[in-house]
């Protein structure tokens, strides 16, 4: 099982950053790789078990199920149901922790998944640096960091 861990510091209090990222249907608002998102069956985006369907800017499609959402821990866990990446058993968590020193947020985005061994390094780099760090960079440019 491959694991990816990316973390960063976002220059705004956790509740403000969380207000943006808790929306399971809101990634097009802040993630540069996502063109469109919708929740299947019209469910509310904070309903645990709901499925979001993305269209990526490069044309690909991804479906992901919300497994856990915590306003108390500022964390969101989801699984990939379908994607062009060629990963299996992919579960990821995005989590914020307040940094009391300076009113900032510590942001962690981690994932574990199965893939053919020869693709692991490439996928870890793509997901960690492309998807996760790309999202953090966008949040940093929005909130400071």
């Amino acid at each position, binding site marked *: 099982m491959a694991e990816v861990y990316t*973390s960063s510091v976002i220059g705004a209090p956790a509740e403000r950053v969380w207000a943006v990222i808790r929306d399971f249907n809101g990634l097009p608002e802040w993630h540069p790789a996502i063109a469109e998102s919708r929740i299947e069956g019209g469910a509310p985006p904070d309903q645990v078990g709901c499925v979001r369907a993305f269209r990526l800017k490069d044309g690909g499609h991804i479906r992901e199920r919300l497994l856990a959402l915590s306003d108390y821990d500022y964390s969101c866990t989801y699984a990939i149901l379908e994607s062009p990446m060629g990963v299996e058993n992919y579960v990821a968590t995005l989590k914020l922790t307040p940094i009391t020193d300076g009113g900032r947020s*510590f942001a962690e985005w981690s994932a574990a998944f199965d893939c053919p061994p020869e693709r692991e390094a490439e996928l870890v780099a793509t997901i960690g640096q492309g998807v996760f760090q790309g999202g953090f960079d966008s949040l940093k440019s929005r909130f400071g960091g």
Partner: protein
Amino acid sequence: MVSVRRSTVIDAPIAAVWEVLRDFNGHDRWHPAVDRSRVEGGGRSDRVGAVRDFVLTGGERLRERLLALSDKEHSFRYSIVESEIPLQNYVAEVSLKPVTDGDRTFWSWSSRFETPAGRERELAALVAEGVYEAGFEAIRDRVEGRGGTLPAPAVAPAGDAIEGLAMVIDRHGGPEELHPARVAATVPGPGQVRLRQTAIGVNFIDVYCRTGCFDLMTPPGALGMEAAGVVIDVGPSVRHLSPGQRVAYACPPVGAYATRRTMDAALVLPLPDGIDDETAAAGLLKGMTAEFLLHRVHRLQGGETVLVYAPAGGVGRLLCQWAKHLGATVIGATSSEAKARIARAAGADHVILPGRESLEAQVRALTGGRGAEVIYDAVGRDSFAHSVAALADCGHLVSFGQASGPIGAWDIGALASNSATISRPNFGHYTDTPEKVAAITGRLFEAIERRILSVEVGRRYPLTEAAAAHRALEGRETTASTILIPEEDSP
């Protein structure tokens, strides 16, 4: 229930921050609120369940227990066991996370506790600001390389050299060369400590230094490699020792036969509460010797057969106890039934006495003809040939002493008869850095605390009668460990 959480980002990689924070007994070296810290019972600070005893810079005492420690999560949890500050049911967690974006460290420090009614806010502020935020700044200064705010050493030495008494030799020779002399324990300089010694170990290596067999010292000078005592004062930049602390050492440079001594503080270890001064002086060097003989010179495996000469002596008893614990079959070779009883009590499965059959024949009879896989031989001239003959094929002869005299020249071609390996370790080479000493003593103290080893004091001599102690040791009169006690009225 009051809940406090503070967090920050330190601009240094997580490994650098964790290296400092992980030492549960090290907060006195960086936290401005902590003046002194020690682990009760002298155990390792990374042992879950360890209790640290703080004296805060305000003078208050605080005892805290390590509840959990994770090198994987870079976190530890601890609770207050006893405190002069009224924090009740206090449980805290220190947790580090890597910030991969910039190779920095996120540090969270949180706790929950109760206070006397009406003092919640005051004590929460004390914990949050006085402890957690102050700690953040001290570590930031330390690992981000800004420097400057680490607390000064606990003691600024002052005054003059303190006169003491030492047992010295002016030239190599017999026990009669040992005589008392006035010596000065100088004010400790940077990195040094000055000790008042309370018990001094006598070891065969002292005899070798006296005779000139080992070149660890050049006369004139005091003999001795091992002592326990109390810190009088410390020099600048010494952070792990403080005045009044009980300590011990067992290492070069030679010079332990003294009432007072100034030496390199890095070589001096805080002594666990569970180990008294006489036990330390009697067991530290011998125990360290047993440690590196059984774990480093040869890595003893369960199932191996070990032959130990002088199994009733200071090192021999410890070798028997420890080898038995490691699962070896232990054969002791000694000279009398009285010593044989001591060896059996120490764990020897078999004891060989001089008899009609040679030592090697007796060893082979006990091992189904195979011989001993490992032989610890500090006898030397009188035993060496027998040891080679008693070795199993591909066996290891560890010749770590020569109590009976020099072994002389040997044709190594003869070793082809059983493909023998021979080692001639010297204590000095295994103990010449603080890192080596820490590794060896860590395992040794644990073995003493777990009662795998029991150190027994044999004879006690006044320091000024060191020559008599040497004569008894060389005369094979002693069992267990011999120590010297500085006289009450000596300076």
